[in-house]
């Protein structure tokens, strides 16, 4: 049986299965946008999905520039869109 995980993204609560990446969990919950770009304020989501492109970067528990496609969601994680 897989364990259920609860984490927050921009203060909103999300649940997923253990082992899922943050990006996958958010996309599964129909939350495609992960951040806005610095200059154009354009929405961005996952692009390469394997940690190459850094388009999906978010702040995780206060640490900036984490690739949400690589980091597995953990119980109680506080995820915030990069600015």
């Amino acid at each position, binding site marked *: 049986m897989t364990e259920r995980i609860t984490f927050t993204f921009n203060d909103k609560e999300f649940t997923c299965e253990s082992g899922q990446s943050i990006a996958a969990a958010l996309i*599964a919950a129909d939350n495609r946008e992960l951040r806005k770009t610095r200059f154009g304020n354009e929405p*961005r*989501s996952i*692009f*390469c*999905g394997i940690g190459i492109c850094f*388009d999906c*970067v978010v702040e995780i528990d206060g640490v900036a520039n984490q690739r949400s496609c690589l980091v597995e969601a953990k119980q109680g994680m506080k995820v915030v869109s990069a600015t």
Partner: protein
Amino acid sequence: MIIVIGAGPAGLAAAEAASRNGSDIALIDSSPRVGGQYWRNRGTVKGYRSGRADQLFSKISSAKSITHISEATVWSIEKEGDLFRVNYLQGGEESSLTAEKLILATGAYDRSLPFPGWDKPGSMTPGAAQAMLKGSGVLVGKRVVVAGTGPFLLPVATGLAESGAEIVGLYEANSPIRWLLSLHALLLNPGKFAELFYYGNLLKRFKISLKFNRAVSSFADGSATVSHINSHFMVKSQREKIVHTDVVAVGWGFLPDLTLGGIVGCAQRVDSDGTTIFAVDGEQRSSVENVWIAGEATGIGGADLSLIEGEIAGLSASSQSISPSKRFTRIRKEIFANALKRSYPIGDGWQSWPQESTTICRCEEVTMHEIRESVTELGAEDSRTAKLFTRAGMGLCQGRVCSRNVSEIVGGLTHCSVTDGERIASSNRPIASPISLGLLGDGKK
């Protein structure tokens, strides 16, 4: 001791082969589990089971002389006398390991080409769509268009369909007639007929029609424009179709990650299709003594070629003999890899797809207009100068996504072909992965 970096097909084959005579091996990889991108989480998702992977995985886990270091990102390699010191980050901590010999099997990632809307949420690489499914069991969308070029589009489309996605379009940019130039490669690799038959059946089962000579020319708000293109990838006017879709998964073959070999100083060359790769000899030895390189970084060729290259590298690094039949297998797989390059070339016409406002460098948000201006107004004559003017390629991904495209766009604007020197220079970076100055400072002796 031998350090193998990368636990995909090439790295696993290398570690397994080298362990046959009891050599001590450290297998370093950035993922939690072995398999690389190709065998990521194999066995758990429909359509991705592999007996070959299961066999290799069990040999690796039962070999006493192999230590698997997982979730470790290598960010640099230093030479210390006769030893290589491999520095890596694991769980936010800096660690290192030394060995006399290195085998690099760092793999490849999807090549992307810019088109209007390629930076919008919902546009991604086929590799991303597959990684979300294999790694996390998540479908990237209910309705998906798969497009670009190369045989990889087939497992992506059929894999997504098997897990319940509706493939609303599967578009190959090249024509299948190109395979007529490479019939010998198919005859030397008859197993490929079975694969073709397998995917053909799956396409039929899921009622996916594969269309040729087409490309996604724009994407916005849940709709993709699909255009007919000629053999040079120029869009034919008035022949387009609007397709409603959540996701466009578009990929143009693969680019190898050359960073680590570049840091060690291994000589590179430009492959027949313009891809920068490492030069290696018949035993996968690089130009640097005691460094072997195997898999996609020595020429894009897929898992079959990676496996035999990895095995040869592992045998050579552990001073075991390599049978003539293994050498012949490598040649046979290489002939097939060359056939893929001939059958799925990238036409320069893609340079006409971006509009002036289309993003070319995703990280630094540099548009086609800015790159054009750096050439026409500021006088940039090569991509390096264009990058200095525009910051294209200077973001977090360090140009992995855009630098080849920027070189080719600047080449197109200046009517010069991109030189081998420029292609090699734009593929290298001094630090493999972003690392904070704090860690860099603390981690040093």
